[in-house]
């Protein structure tokens, strides 16, 4: 039996605001329990919500970035249910009239040159408040409630069920993660819960038109868990169906320790959230002027930038995609190219993607904490290009700059005497000495063994302590050995 997997994602992105969506309490992560829960957050009797402008602006930014429709008028609704981490007994969310409708996201599935593009449609994105946290450590058999997170602004981004594998789901989640960080609306910190996914998973026989019954896997806060949870869930659903069973619609949790999903025990109450427009909040109106202003402030989007990098800098699709994985990285690269000159775009790309990436990786730093500035790196690339130093010396200069051993490439080259030998008299002497000292190599080369010249180049490089330009040495040797 062939099965088709159908996946839609609901992603909660915590918006990068200082204060909560409906109150003036701080949103900082990691505070002591309940000290960032003000009267509105703990739902004292009589308190009222007032909407945070920045949260709305984030939603507009997102809507414009995905090409969705930013509603001129949207409505906040109450989603009613009882849970100890939900102080009001309802969550303020948007239901029938969300702030963003439609839009799409282009994802790349697969690695490197093999990657294929796919467009995932978005259903909507709406503003809502986060709940608090229930801590299940043992307080004499009770749970502890921390409401610091209650009221944190979230943008819930709902995709169409357009994904057909866990790989696609992860690619979508990654693209979305990159985008929300790119446009500055979410810090994307998954460990802290700033970006978490619910996956709606169903399977159906290949060719069937009707969607299968879906189960919703809640609260996946890493790409790995997303993949594992979907893979497990798909196999489980196929197993049930192949055994002649039926899938019941359910909300399930993923247990990272066992790698399994299981249906939640609570909330088994027939869901009836009794949504209705929140009488404490008036309709959210976003006029054209505000949208235009946000659009003007929006950075160039990753798709556009990727195309431009390929076009203007002659980069491969893979290189362009790698360099536009995050806005800070792309900006670093562009500064580097700007300082080095556009003709050096390709070597700049290599330095950023290979040497710098490896160094950052080792030090577990992100590009915003790069130990070398874009200008320093550009200076280095220029000195290699103009022959001042060799590529091999370049790596030494790179390390020195990263270690703070000089203000720029030129200073390091001078201080450490890494300049390539430009004195052709001295170099000719070294070439002559190599020819004299390696008659066998000379003979082999003359006999037509092209490779033998490398041994001679190596000798000269060694004698020059690496300062000779290998290209120049090669040319000199060939000239001398010309029959």
């Amino acid at each position, binding site marked *: 039996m062939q099965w088709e997997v159908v996946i839609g994602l609901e992603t909660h992105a915590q918006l990068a605001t200082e204060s909560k969506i409906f109150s003036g309490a701080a949103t900082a992560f990691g505070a002591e329990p309940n000290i960032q829960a003000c009267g509105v957050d703990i739902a004292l009797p009589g308190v*009222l919500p007032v909407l945070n402008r920045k949260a709305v602006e984030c939603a507009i930014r997102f809507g414009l970035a995905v090409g969705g429709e930013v509603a001129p008028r949207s409505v906040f609704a*109450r989603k009613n249910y009882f849970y100890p981490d939900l102080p009001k007994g309802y969550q303020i969310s948007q239901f029938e009239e969300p702030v963003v409708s439609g839009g799409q996201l282009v994802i790349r599935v697969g690695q490197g040159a093999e990657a294929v593009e796919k467009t995932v449609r978005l259903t909507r994105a709406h503003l809502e408040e986060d709940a608090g946290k229930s801590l299940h450590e043992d307080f004499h058999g009770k749970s502890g409630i921390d409401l610091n997170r209650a009221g944190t602004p979230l943008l819930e981004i709902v995709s169409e069920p357009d994904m057909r594998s866990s790989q696609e789901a992860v690619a979508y989640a990654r693209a979305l993660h990159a985008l929300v960080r790119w446009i500055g609306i979410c810090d994307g910190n998954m460990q802290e819960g700033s970006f978490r996914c619910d996956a709606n998973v169903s399977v159906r026989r290949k060719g069937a038109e009707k969607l299968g019954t879906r189960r919703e896997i809640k609260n996946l806060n890493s790409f790995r868990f997303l993949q594992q949870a979907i893979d497990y869930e798909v196999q489980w659903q196929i197993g049930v169906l192949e055994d002649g069973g039926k899938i019941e619609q359910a909300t399930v949790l993923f247990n990272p320790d066992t790698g399994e999903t299981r249906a939640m025990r609570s909330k088994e109450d027939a869901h009836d959230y009794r949504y209705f427009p929140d*009488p404490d909040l008036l309709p959210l109106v976003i006029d054209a002027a505000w949208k235009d202003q946000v659009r003007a402030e929006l950075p160039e989007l990753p798709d556009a930038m990727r195309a431009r990098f390929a076009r203007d800098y002659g980069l491969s699709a893979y290189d362009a995609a790698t360099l536009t994985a995050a806005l800070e990285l792309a900006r670093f690269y562009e500064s580097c190219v700007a300082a080095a000159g556009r003709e050096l775009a390709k070597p700049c790309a290599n330095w950023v993607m290979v040497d710098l990436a490896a160094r950052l990786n080792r030090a577990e730093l992100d590009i915003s904490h790069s130990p070398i500035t874009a200008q320093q790196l550009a200076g280095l690339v220029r000195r290699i290009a103009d022959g001042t130093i060799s590529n091999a010396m370049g790596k030494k200069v790179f390390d020195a700059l990263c270690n703070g051993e000089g203000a720029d490439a030129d200073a390091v080259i001078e201080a450490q005497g890494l300049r390539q030998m430009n004195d052709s008299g001295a170099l000719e002497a070294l070439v002559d000495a190599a020819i004299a000292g390696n008659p066998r190599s000379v003979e082999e080369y003359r006999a037509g063994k092209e490779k033998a010249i490398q041994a001679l180049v190596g000798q000269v490089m060694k004698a020059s302590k690496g300062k000779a330009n290998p290209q120049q040495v090669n040319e000199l040797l060939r000239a001398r050995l010309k029959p």
Partner: protein
Amino acid sequence: MINLSLSELGAALAAGQISSVELTQLFLDRCARENPRLNAFICLDQARALDAARAADAARAAGRAGPLTGIPLAHKDIFCARGWRTTCASRMLENFVSPYDAHVVGLLQDAGMVLVGKTNMDEFAMGSSNETSYFGPVKNPWDHTMVPGGSSGGSAAAIAARLVPAATGTDTGGSIRQPAALCGLSGLKPTYGVCSRYGMIAFASSLDQAGPMAKSAEDCALMLNAMAGFDARDSTSLDRPAENYTRLLGEPLAGLRIGLPREYFAAGLDAGVHAVVDAALDQFRKLGAVTVDISLPNSGLSVPAYYVIAPAEASSNLSRFDGVRYGHRAADYSDLADMYCRSRAEGFGAEVKRRILIGTYVLSHGYYDAYYLQAQKIRRLIARDFQAAFEHCDLIMGPTAPDVAFPLGAKSADPVQMYLNDIYTIAANLAGLPGMSIPCGFARGLPVGLQLVGAWFDEARMLGAAHQYQLNTDWHRAMPAGL
């Protein structure tokens, strides 16, 4: 002294004829003597009141006295006042000491008024007789076997018995106007949004408005000057320039067009009340006003629409009372769900539970459109009726309630009979219009209220008309026997 108006009290204080401490002690003594019989107060605090009075006297000595400085006041126990037990007349909040001040509470404190206590009310403002209070019913000072009306019945009884010169109330469907009518007082519900709802324990958020209750229209105008004003903490608070609500008190009535909705004088109106209201209208004509017949064709639907909208909002507003962060928690329970169910069942009285059930039902899946949405559409029709009516008149007048005060217990077994008490007052809440009730005579020895409904933001004109009437009549000076 106890029958003086607020401006007369203010003048006496300003002239040094009496100090705020003396005045406050006078009223406190009356409270101590009369309250055990009337049950108008849930809480009286002599020490705090005298502290506030001393502060008022000090402010006056320092030349910082306003028109209300030093005058005693009571708040309906729906207003949160920092450090005061704030119960909403519910067992749920029996021991709730508010950690903050309602906006209105802060404003009146800033105006120098002296808070002596918190008044009894229907539980969570749900009732028209003050019999649903967990702390027992309030007696009507005109006849202790009669109800004072509700839900602001404690405030009404306290003023009528001259235990305080003025008090706050709230009006969701008539809760200021109806008890004012039944106790022979003046009470005003402003246009929705004029007084901040911040710190007023919510019943039905889209209908609730705070307002003043006092002996005369002039007193209400002075109180409203202090209570009204923009509050950034309430999203529905209106940001408009401050208004002097006394500015039209001297305006003659000549040419004033008074609309008489034929629906308010139809079957269901007590003949005695009808005659008294007719006489009051004659008085207005004598003073130069003209009356025009108007129609509010959908007014008959205001009670049905109200008993969908108000319970729907209430069911959600009261979800925060779950025994987790404050309020009543049951002593015995087996698990979390049981704790919720028992705490709420024990904490809420019968009428509150009834309305929560109605509200839950009309919002639930499959019934939303037929009830909640239909009620909201009818609300629109009712608002349009008023809009059309105000093309033909400046003010609308009619009876406040279909009858005078009824005996305690007479209607408590029949919710529908109780609900019909608000048949003339509810429409103003649905439309958001200002309304007031002023005493206009007696039927069967009990006070009758004349209701005035103004166009949006036309409080000043409404107060002016009421004041002109009171300049020419004595009904507002009448006092229950034996005071």
